[in-house]
């Protein structure tokens, strides 16, 4: 049996490779549906080009987009997972290997000196979010976050007295302000409540949810649908050239908040909504959850 840290490295590498080359099935299906439903000719041209590009990337086994983004890992680790102390190093090793072997564009730049580390790692990169749970397994997800979509993330500390209508206005404004830039059709992650950084975190994590899966909370599901419809009424359309599909889906998550503050965060994922997940079991066997290996 491989040592557990080797398993983690292998799985992380495989997830990154899968994510940048193959879109999850739900995203492909949503793009296909958008194509069928579009009536504007220019919008259809854009979606057709996107679908062709997705298919060609799969065939040639190369990254879908030249911007292979920054890598964001979500680790849900059991306290008794063997090799828990080696997970971080295993993730770093996987990212360095993926940069060379997939390949990924080196996208880790020192914010003051502009020096590129060349291997997609550096202080704070890859981003690793930990969640410690009981048990002996490890669940790992990677989100590949391009610069074009990340640049339009917004956080609003809204007036609690204005309630839901302030939230809706904030989300629609964010979509309109972003316009063509985050490569629509996009997917929105909306984090509500908590603190400023928790709202942003929830919004980003929500981007891992599969499209078309209803929110377990019925009233939130209703709000997601309402926001989706509103975003698509903007008419921004694929690549901002007009059309019915500006957003493919909205995922909401929330946390309790202070009575005096109402943080709302919106995160965008571009149509190249690249993510992948897997779980490592107690016996070291691996279950791939979003892609088949």
């Amino acid at each position, binding site marked *: 049996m491989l040592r557990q840290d080797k398993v983690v490295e292998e799985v992380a590498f495989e997830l990154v490779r899968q994510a940048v080359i193959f879109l999850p099935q739900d995203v492909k299906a949503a793009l296909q549906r958008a194509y069928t439903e579009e009536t504007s*000719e*220019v919008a259809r*041209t*854009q979606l057709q*080009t*996107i679908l*062709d*590009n997705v298919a*060609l*990337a799969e065939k*040639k086994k*190369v*990254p*879908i*987009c*030249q*911007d292979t983004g920054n890598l964001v890992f979500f680790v849900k680790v059991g306290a008794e997972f063997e090799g828990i102390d080696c997970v971080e190093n295993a993730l770093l090793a996987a990212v360095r290997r993926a940069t060379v072997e997939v*390949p990924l*564009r080196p996208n880790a730049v020192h914010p003051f000196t502009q020096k590129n580390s060349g291997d997609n790692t550096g202080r704070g990169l890859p981003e690793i979010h930990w969640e410690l749970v009981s048990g002996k397994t490890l669940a790992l997800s990677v989100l590949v976050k*391009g610069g*074009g979509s990340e640049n339009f993330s917004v956080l609003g500390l809204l007036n609690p007295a204005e309630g*839901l*209508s*302030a939230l*809706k*206005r904030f989300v*629609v*404004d964010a979509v*309109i302000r972003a*316009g*063509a*830039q985050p*490569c629509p059709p996009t997917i929105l992650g909306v984090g509500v409540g908590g603190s400023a950084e928790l709202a942003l975190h929830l919004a980003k994590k929500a981007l891992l949810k599969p499209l078309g899966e209803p929110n377990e909370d019925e009233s939130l599901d209703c709000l997601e649908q*309402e926001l989706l419809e*509103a975003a698509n*009424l*903007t*008419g*921004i*359309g694929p*690549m*901002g*050239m*007009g059309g019915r599909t500006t957003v493919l889906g909205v995922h909401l998550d929330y946390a309790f908040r202070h009575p005096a503050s109402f943080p709302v965060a919106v995160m965008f994922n*571009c*149509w*190249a909504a690249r993510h992948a997940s897997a779980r490592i079991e107690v016996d070291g066997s691996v279950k791939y959850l979003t892609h088949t290996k």
Partner: protein
Amino acid sequence: MAKYDLATPLSETQIRELKVYDVVYLSGLVVTARDQAHLRALDFFKENKQLSINLEGLAVFHCGPVLKKDDNQWVVVAAGPTTSTRMEGVEAEFIAGSKVRMVIGKGGMGQRTAEAMVKFGAVYCAFTGGAAVLAAQAVKRVLGVQWLDLGEPEAMWQFEVDKFGPLVVAIDTHGGNLFSDIAQKVEFNRQIISQKLNCKL
């Protein structure tokens, strides 16, 4: 929405025929340039220095490609468009100095560029953001590169392309601007959404 197969060098007449929403498939010579290459080119124009390639009638592509070297020959792996507004401050001067007839990118450009296009006879075409593999496939050969000291993504690459597209004309020489049309419609829709959501937007 007419469809055109065009080849470089592009003539002024050909370009002035194009209207927003037309679709172009381009063959011939395209050079890449992001912010840094634009700035370097402007210095060259100012000092009357020659670039390693005459850009007259060619297309400039806002793109930072990913390449690899096979048997000492550059091969394009991915070549999607980058955000064009980053070049808004310099594009008008670039068009004037280089006499390119086509600018290719994503997301549209502003008023200054649009005015230069009317004046000098050039169009802006949008290529689908993220469609990097399709773009790479259209590149048949890398003919040359200059300013590699700026780094691979920022250098000016010369690509021989075959039926590169679909490129949607988004700024034409008749004052048409697809992205500002859409922006106006979106503003109008903002009012409708506001009523629907029952909250002021």
